[in-house]
């Protein structure tokens, strides 16, 4: 059976549906101590003193420590992506010592015999804070107006990063159509269902750190760098990990501190985050203000695009904080041809939780901007939004195509995906219904939104990362061990947390080695088991790690071929390998199975001269290019013009992710991606009040949609293989999220177009929709505009103490 392309049910599922899982918090070693962190209730304050005397007296309390206690050993949390030479990277102690800069920053911790005792003792710690000004508004912060986040830097600006290509002056000069917009990418909280958790077990001078992380390998190296504990003394295990979406692509202070506590106390030390703690302290995503200028000709052809970004870094630069908006720099042009492009991004410090990767990481923001602008352009020219895209996109016969942003898109077929999506969506029928509702002045209006997106993923070619000043490469590693019994162990450096590697990797290995799927076991997520890796993020696992596995399998077959030839007394060039068996070409009855060859290698009685007794192999793959999945998404939204409520009526997603290893998994990734992208469009927003308090600390206020809030999706695929890897695969993990946000907002705006609305800020909450509509109607009637609602209320800010 051909495994690659088959909808294999997942091998991972059995332990997950029975509760026999190994989440970090499920690991309960004898004698483990529990840590609770006291967190700043102030957005910005100087720590004048911390009194832990009473807390230390509480029953069951083993230690109470402050930032000052860790100061000599805690180092500074790393930023691995200094995007410019003159970037300002402030010191970031895992536990604050002198100053706190966001609500939730840790200032002290209690280590106790159980979690209840630890949390109780937190209330006995007395911290004397001298409040400093909160810096909440990015546009004010950039003026230095209202105080500095880091006094010593003398500015709130971390960096300015610029990219320019083409003659922008020429493109803008006398352009018949110029569209200027300001879009806000609201701050989001990634909200993996499993909160973070860390357990560090000391064994002599060695430490095993279990963490709900996406990046065990990077984390190990960074822990060694930060703490100066030698790398080979640290083992990092990512056991079952309950989702990440970028939020667990991080080196967190709690990870460093648990390691230091385990060293200090000589006992296993565990910390498990609560949701309200996590909303404040697990890094956030998005948060950009985009100023955009698009120039076009009357026929709709784009001449140039100017992008000016403010990107909120939060209080510190974490692992890849500054690089996130820069990833978007290459995507604002989308699938379109244009003559000139310029991109300027300023990274701004505020007294808020640091931002970093969240599903899509820079590309959703860019895709949103260009796909919203394409709809605006269509309106400006009175063209159908599909038509204006057609006039600008790269035609399928033009690939490979070097874009204005300097990337080479290797393959794609935007026409095919769009045609398929239009047919599934019944586009013309919905347009007719829309016209009818407009005609009837129906209180519920229908809008249709389009998003013809692409994205760059499969992070990443190491030379490109190098040119962008990233601190590491983008390769991935795989090893294949064929055991004496013929069973196969695959080791991958990619670290899954829901993506289904154990299934998909086994499918690849089964095909390449000609062994049954059931005979392959995939090992991952433990630096002692999988010694090399770059982990999982940026839709890279299959397009980089899967290819490494593919190559490692071929190496195994090559080694085995040599031994098989020896055993068959034939030339290697005369052997063919099919269905797990070597045979002499044209004499199929003469052959050796892989298992027989491996058994012979294990016995080592009769090996070719110089051959080691093993056919095992490993491979490291470094892609030459990104992969560029693309697709056409169409959304129909009903907007209640009386209440502002938006209901999605239908959603069609046709994605082209190249060759597919497991269509079941691919479809699931698209579904989940859509849900998160739709959630940004309609529901989710991390809200800070003027004092810098996060008011959406619980799931009662940060609105993650449930099944009842989302529509049934219609998904389909076109298949244009990637040319940059032998599997022909592209990444799929982020595509749905990247594509869907603009499709939904375009639909909402389209519904309200007749009233003079040309934008609704995200999330398009009922009140925002209602206000936008009212203001547009008021403007039409010559009245002034109202104000947007402020923050506050609900369970709201539950304070910094946890």
């Amino acid at each position, binding site marked *: 059976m051909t495994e690659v392309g088959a909808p294999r049910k997942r091998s991972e599922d059995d332990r997950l549906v029975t509760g026999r899982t190994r989440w970090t918090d499920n690991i309960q070693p004898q004698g483990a101590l529990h840590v609770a962190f006291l967190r700043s209730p102030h957005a910005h304050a100087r720590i004048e003193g911390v009194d832990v005397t009473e807390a230390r007296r509480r029953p069951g309390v083993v230690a109470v420590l402050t930032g000052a206690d860790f100061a000599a050993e805690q180092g500074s949390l790393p930023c691995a992506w200094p995007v410019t030479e003159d970037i300002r990277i402030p010191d970031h102690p895992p536990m604050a010592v002198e100053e706190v800069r966001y609500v939730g920053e840790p200032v002290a911790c209690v280590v106790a015999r159980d979690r209840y005792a630890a949390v109780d003792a937190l209330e006995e710690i007395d911290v004397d804070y001298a409040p400093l000004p909160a810096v909440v508004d990015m546009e004010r912060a950039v003026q230095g107006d209202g105080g500095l986040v880091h006094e010593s830097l003398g500015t709130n600006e971390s960096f300015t990063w610029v990219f320019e290509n083409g003659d922008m002056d020429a493109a803008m000069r006398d352009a018949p159509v110029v569209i200027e917009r300001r879009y806000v990418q609201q701050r989001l909280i990634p909200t993996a269902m499993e909160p973070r958790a860390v357990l560090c077990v000391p064994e002599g001078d060695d430490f095993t750190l279990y963490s709900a992380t996406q990046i065990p390998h990077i984390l190990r190296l960074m822990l060694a760098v930060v703490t100066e504990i030698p790398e080979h003394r640290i083992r990092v295990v990512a056991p079952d990990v309950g989702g990440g979406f970028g939020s667990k692509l991080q080196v967190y202070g709690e990870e460093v501190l648990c390691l230091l506590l385990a060293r200090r106390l000589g006992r296993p030390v565990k910390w498990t985050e609560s949701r309200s703690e996590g909303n404040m302290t697990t890094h956030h995503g998005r948060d950009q203000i985009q100023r955009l200028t698009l120039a076009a000709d009357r026929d709709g052809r784009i001449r140039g695009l100017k992008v000016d970004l403010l990107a909120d870094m939060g209080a510190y630069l974490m692992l890849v904080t500054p690089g996130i908006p820069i990833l978007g720099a290459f995507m604002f042009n989308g699938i379109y041809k244009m003559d000139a492009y310029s991109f300027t991004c300023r990274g701004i410090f505020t007294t808020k939780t640091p931002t970093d990767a969240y599903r899509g990481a820079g590309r959703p923001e860019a895709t949103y901007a260009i796909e919203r602008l394409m709809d605006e352009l269509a309106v400006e020219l009175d063209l159908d939004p599909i038509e204006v895209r057609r006039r600008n996109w790269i035609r399928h016969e033009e690939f490979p195509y070097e874009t204005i942003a300097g990337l080479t898109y290797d393959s794609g077929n935007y026409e095919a995906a769009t045609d398929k999506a239009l047919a599934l969506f019944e586009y013309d029928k919905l347009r007719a219904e829309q016209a009818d509702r407009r005609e009837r002045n129906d209180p519920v209006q229908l809008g249709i939104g389009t998003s013809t997106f692409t994205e760059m993923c499969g992070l990443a070619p190491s030379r490109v990362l190098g040119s962008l000043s990233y601190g590491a490469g983008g390769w991935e590693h795989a090893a294949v061990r064929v055991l004496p019994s013929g069973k196969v162990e695959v080791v991958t450096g990619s670290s899954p947390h829901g993506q289904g590697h154990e299934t998909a990797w086994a499918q690849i290995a089964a095909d390449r080695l000609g062994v049954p799927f059931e005979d392959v076991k995939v090992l991952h997520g433990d630096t002692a088991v999988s010694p090399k890796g770059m982990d999982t993020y940026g839709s890279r696992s299959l397009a980089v790690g899967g290819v490494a596995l593919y190559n490692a399998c071929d190496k195994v077959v090559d080694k085995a071929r040599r031994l098989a030839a020896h055993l068959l007394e034939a030339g290697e060039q005369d052997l063919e390998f099919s269905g797990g068996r070597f045979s002499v070409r044209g004499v199929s009855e003469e052959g050796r199975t892989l298992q027989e060859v491996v058994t012979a290698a294990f016995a080592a009685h009769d090996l070719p001269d110089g051959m080691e007794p093993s056919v095992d192999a490993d491979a490291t793959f470094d892609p030459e290019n990104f992969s560029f999945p693309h697709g056409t998404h169409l959304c129909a939204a009903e907007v209640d013009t009386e209440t502002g409520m938006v209901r999605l009526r239908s959603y069609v997603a046709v994605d082209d992710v190249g060759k597919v290893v497991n269509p079941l998994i691919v479809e699931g990734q698209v579904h989940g991606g859509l849900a998160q992208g739709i959630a940004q469009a309609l529901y989710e927003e991390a809200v800070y009040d003027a004092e810098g308090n996060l008011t*959406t600390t619980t799931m009662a206020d940060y*609105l993650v949609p*449930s099944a*009842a809030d989302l529509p049934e999706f219609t998904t389909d695929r076109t298949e244009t293989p990637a040319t940059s890897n032998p599997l022909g695969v592209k990444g799929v993990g982020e595509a749905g999220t990247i594509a869907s946000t603009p499709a939904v907002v375009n639909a909402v705006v389209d519904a309200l177009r007749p009233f003079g609305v040309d934008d609704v800020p995200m999330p398009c909450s009922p*009140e925002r929709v*209602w206000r936008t509509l009212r203001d547009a109607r008021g403007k039409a009637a010559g009245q002034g505009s109202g104000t947007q609602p402020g923050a506050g209320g*609900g369970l709201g800010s*539950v304070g910094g103490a946890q």
Partner: protein
Amino acid sequence: MIPAQFEYVRPSSLDEAVTALAEAGEDAKVLAGGQSLMPLLRLRLAYPDALVDLDRIDALREIRDEGDALVIGAMATHHQVFRDPLVNEHAPLIVEATATVADPAVRHRGTFGGSMAHADPAADLPAVAVALDAVFLARSVRGERAIPAAEFFVDWMTSALEPDELLTGVRVPKLGPGWGVHYEKFRRTAQAWSIVGVACALRRDDGAVAEARIGLTNMGPVPVRASAAEDAIRGRPATAEAFREAAGAAAEGASPPTDLHGSAEYREHLARVLTARAMAAAAAV
């Protein structure tokens, strides 16, 4: 997160319960279904010295027919109320509103009386009680008293119950023939609290509206009656247009909050729109 320490008492009769509550003092709290209280305890937004758990007092779960009214025991769960034949027959507005409370698991534990005594203006059932002129039955070691709905909700999260008083049940007048009901709930996601909710019972006589009772959720620190709208619709024909006109007065006298999910101004607007819709649905127009 984890609750702070408290004492725990689990009386097995009503008498024991009121005694326990009296002894526990001012900083004790009654534990009914716990579905609102537990999150507050876990977030350490509430620090009671003691919890008096009513879970094992079966008498408090009874729903009984008292002629022209039903008495719904304070500890009847939402799940129980929703399925109860008496409530379905005589107080369908409660059934409709109950179906929108939180989610099935919460409705299994959460109680009718707990939701009332918690006095959260964003909760759905208090507005229903106000609309129906329900009467709250309280008991303490000092005796029993009946508190009309209009006096029961005193302020934000504050009921008229004294610290030593238990809510034992709620007397709900039966709606006779000719009444239609509807609970119109407006929220951003299925699990989110109501931005505004409208509880409406409406009696038609021929083609006209003889009487309407309208309670509003989350339109102030306490659930409020939309009396001006009730007056405006009385005697008018049961048409969508008349409902819209009358609903123009729905927010009169309300003082809605501004919070994360809606401003006061927006809530006033919603109250008008949703009241018209609730009346139309109740009248089956």
